[in-house]
Structures are given as C-alpha cells and as structure tokens.
C-alpha cells in the first residue's frame, strides 16, 4: 500500500527521484490511480500552492516541487487516460505569438494538472489559430502567457477573438497586470501560478 504521506512530502520537498520511485511502485502494484492522485499528488500540489500564497514558500520551492510533480504525472498520465477518470475541466494554455519564454507558463500548467485539471499545453508563439485548436479539443478556458512588454498586446487579439464564444480567456506573465486585464476585457488575471489555479477554480464553479 502506498504511503501517501511519503508521496506528499516527496512532492512538497521537490524530491523528483523519490516521487518517481513511489509512483512507479504504486503502478507496479496495480494500485488505484485515483487514490494516488487524490490522496497523494493533488493534495501535495494544493498544499505547496497554499504555502506559496501565504508567503511560506517562494518560486524556487514551487518550481522544484512542480518538477517533481511532473515526473510523477508523466508516469500516471497514460493510465489516467485509460482509466476514464473525469478531470475537473479542460484548459488550453500557451505563450502568446512573438514570445518564446515558457518557464512561467509551464509552471502554471503543472500546477493546474496538479490541482486535477486537464491541461492542453499549446507551447510557445501561439497565434489565435493555435488557441482555437485547444478549444476544438474541448478547452473551456484559454490561458495566455507573455514575458515581454512587446508581446503582451497580442493578448488583446486573443480576448477579442473569443469574445461571445463562451470560452473564457485568462492572462498572466511578468509585464501583465490586473489593470491591463481589465483594459482588454480578459475574463481573469493572476499574479502567480497558484493564483491561476484559484482563478480557474472560481471561473469553472461559476459555469
């Protein structure tokens, strides 16, 4: 039987090898995928995120924990798909056209996965057509990221493209502010990766 506390601690401490070992053993023992996620991985990621929000953890710890989480999820993902597990919702996320910085975007993607969402990672340099692909695959929320002041304005085009379609557009990244989100009429903004999870939680609850 998997020691869920040990798995949680390994994720929170960012011990990638320990996470891989525990998850692999659980898979070998044919344990319930839902239990591994619901009692180990997801509470761990929620906890590190909450610590981050309370200023008890900082970006370095968050990134290292997220990487450990990702290592475990990589083993689980094929099984999740096969198990027919229902995700909390589907989100497509990508760095906007003209920009190729993706560490922040990747962190948000892992945090969302860690919170139980299905994430379609569209990669970098995403134009409107790319975000559309995500929506065609079932995404109800589109996340846009940008690191450069010069690429941020493309977010406006994405927001305008999805206006009235029912798809919600949320934005974030170093130069982005709540004021900018309001100005272009985005459905949401978050200052950091954990805030993005809370934002998605609230948007999907409202649906």
């Amino acid at each position, binding site marked *: 039987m998997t020691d869920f506390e040990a798995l949680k601690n390994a994720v929170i401490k960012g011990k990638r090898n320990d996470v891989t070992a525990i998850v692999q053993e659980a898979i070998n023992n044919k344990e319930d995928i839902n239990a591994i996620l619901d009692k180990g991985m997801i509470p761990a990621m929620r906890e590190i995120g909450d610590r981050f929000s309370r200023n008890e953890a900082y970006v*370095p*710890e968050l990134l290292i924990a997220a990487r450990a989480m990702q290592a475990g999820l990589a083993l689980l993902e094929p099984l999740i798909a096969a198990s027919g597990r229902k995700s909390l919702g589907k989100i497509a996320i990508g760095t906007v056209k003209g920009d*190729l910085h993706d560490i922040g975007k990747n962190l948000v993607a892992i945090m969302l996965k860690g919170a139980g969402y299905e994430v379609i990672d569209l990669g*970098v340099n995403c134009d409107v057509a790319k975000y559309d692909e995500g929506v065609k695959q079932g995404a109800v929320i589109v996340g846009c990221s940008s690191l450069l002041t010069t690429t941020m304005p493309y977010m406006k085009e994405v927001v305008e493209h999805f206006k009235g379609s029912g798809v919600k557009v949320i934005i974030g990244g170093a130069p982005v502010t709540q004021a900018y989100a309001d100005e272009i009429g985005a459905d949401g903004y978050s200052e950091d990766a954990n805030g993005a999870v809370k934002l998605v939680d609230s948007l999907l609850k409202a649906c």
Partner: protein
Amino acid sequence: MSSNSQTRRVTIRRSTELLSDLLSASGHAPDLRCGGRGICGRCKVHLLSGEWQEGERRVTAPADVLACRTRLLSASGEVEYTPFHHEGHVASDWKAEPLPVTEECVIGVDIGTTTIAATKLYRGRIVGRAGCFNLQSKYGDNVVTRISRAATELPGLRAAVRESVGMLLAELGLDGVARIAIAGNTVMSSLFHGVDPTPIGTMPFTPPVRIFPESEWDGIPLLTVPCIAGYVGGDLTAGIAEVGLKPGEMLVDIGTNCEMVFYTPEGIVCTAAAAGPAFEGGGLHFGSRAVDGAIDHYRSATDFSVLGGGNVEPAGFCGSAYVDFLACERKCGHLNEFGRYEPAADRMWITDKLFIHECDIEQLLKAKAAVRAGIDTLEEHCSCRAERIFLAGGFARHLALENAVAIGMLPERPCEIVGNTSLAGAVRLAASPQRMTELIRWIDLPREIPLNTLPEFEDHFIDSLLLP
C-alpha cells in the same frame, strides 16, 4: 524647500498633467523604472495637502500615491518625495591591450541601458573620463520596455539618449576631437540613430540594423560598433574583440540581460538570458546601484563595507553585496538550499534600517539561476566546456568571484573580470577606424542560440535556483 538633502517638497498648482510628468519637468524626476506603468512602485510620493486622483480613486492628503498614476484635482497641493539619483559610479575602466598611440584626439562612448560612460584619448593616453545615467530611464528600466515605448515615442527616446551622450561629450570637450565611436546594445544603438527597434521586441527578435553607417556629431565623424543579434549587441562585439576571444573561452556580460558568447571548436555561439534587474538593485527592498551609501561587500551583519567611506550611513545593497550575503549566510547555516532563513524568519536585519527579506532572496536566486543556466545550457548544447570565462560589465567589476562560485552563479573555472570592454572597444575604434573591418568580421561569426527553445534550459534553470 527640502527637509533634508535627499527628499524634496514641491507645490503643484492647478494642472491636469500627471504628477510624474510635472516632477520630471521640474528637473527632479522620481524613479520611473517601469516606465510610468504603475507596476514598480518606485515613484511613490507623499501627499502633504490637496485633493488628488490616483487612477480611478479619489485621494485626500495626507496619503502615499504613485506619481505616475496621480493627477491634482484641487487648486494646489504639496508633495514630498525622493528624486531619482542621477549620480553614481559609472564603470569606465577595463583590462585590455594598450590603446593605440596616434596624434589624433578621439572619444569613445559606451551606451548602456542604465549608464553611459565616455573616455577621451590623446596620444594613447586617457585624458578625460565622464559618466552619467541614461536619461532614457524615464521610459522604463529595461530594453524591452524601451522597445515597446518606441512604437509611439521614438523621437523622445532618441532625444533622451543623445542628450545624455551630449552632456558627456560637452564635459570632455569636443575641441580638436577627430573622431567619436559609440558601442551599445542593439536597442541602444538603434535608438541613438533614430532607428525603430520594434522587430527586436518579438520573435525572431531580428535587429533592423546591425551595421550602422558612419554619421556625424557636430561635424565630427561618428562610428558605431556593429551588433551581432537582437539581444547581443555592439557592447558584446567590442568585448569579444577586446579580449580576442579564442577557442575554449566564453565572454559573459551580466546585467538585466545576461549575454554570453562562447568560442567552441565548432565555431562561436551566443545567447542572452533574462536575469532581471535584481543585480542592479531593481525589485528588492533595499536594492541599490553603486552609489555612495550602498553596501558593496558583505562578510557578516557586523562586517561590511560601504561605498563612499566610513562616515556615510548605509542606505542599500549593491548586487555584489547580495552575492556576498548569500554565500556567507549559506556557509554559516543561516540560509537553507532554497534560500530560506534558518531558524525560520521572513527577514534578516543588517542595520537598524536595512534588512534582506526572503522575497529579495527569491529574486536574487532567479537572477543567478538565469546566468548559470545560460552557461550550462550553452556548454551542454555545444558538448564543450569553457576553459576560461571573461566577465564584462559594471556588475561583475565589484563581484567577489569566490562568492559567485559558492552560490552556484558561476561554475568553478578560471574567471577573469575584464571591466567595461564595450567602452574600451569604442575608444579603440575611434582611435583606429580601420578596425571596423575586423569588428564587422566578428559579428558574422557567432551563431545565435535562443535558450528558451532548448528543453534543457528549464531543467538547468530549476537546478540553479538552489544554493549549493
């Protein structure tokens, strides 16, 4: 009237203009490092009297507001604030081959995003040095913000950088000067010449111009060191030519953008990593540039040195002091590998006014990780190890190398601090214009590698966030 030498009191009379614009027009601009976008919080002013509007919010004095968001509503109002320092130590020395001895008098200028330095040369001897802050800083503290402002304010950006350069040239004196040469990053070089740098702002970050034609300043011929790529500019061209980069050697210029040029057996590669403004004091509670009163070296909370001598009260920390701090406090166990205090605390007090917060450490770890991840990714991608690393730029000049290695910012290799090689290269070009041919040869050699396209970059970045 000011209450002490640093703060300033100003009365504003009926005006619909932004408070930041009014203060700038008075010649004492507040710190507008984010370009007046209301996000850096550095232009905070204290309202002493009057009715004001900050953004959508009506504010009655006394209150603190951001000058870049605030306008006066009442007939008059008084404010108190600390203007942005335009004094400071500008790096203007270097380690390189002797300069050519010619009969001509020439001037070389290094145009940095933050600071500008100029040197006058006559018969192989330096006869004058001058330095100042780039007046463009009011448009934002980093090149990307400047690019975005150029879309609508190109003439203003051009005028600001030329005004700064003009002040230095006037200070050095243009009488009898035969030639001027400038070197700067690609965005600064473009803005100086009034070229719109917009293409550098988005993928594939192509520079509009790499080789600038000869121009004139007050009738004196002016040459520009050519640029390599959008984010690897003439300052780096000058640097690699000055050190005479050879196989196995890497030149690293640490700033808000950290540029690297690496000479491998398979050719030269170059890249830039976004380190952020932390090393220049940006985004930190008591971060400072190298000005009098800044702590430049740190050994413990009771043992540190302050620029400007012993009688100056410490007012902040330079990047070099933060590097020392991380190394020393990690070594004696006050910091864990994640950069968190042990025993748990959110900040450590260094003097009765100055502290270093865990948020500051977070920013510093991200900055040092970008530098190290850049070096490691280049080496791994090229399957080649740098045998020798040259460190150029103002920040590196104050850096204690052993501490930079201890915190994992630099690998343990023979490192040499070479100073402002951009300025050295500009002076050399001014003295020997025929050198342009060689510089143009250099700019076509490096192949640019965008770090973010390499999957290993993220892994190296995360590894490098830790304190060894």
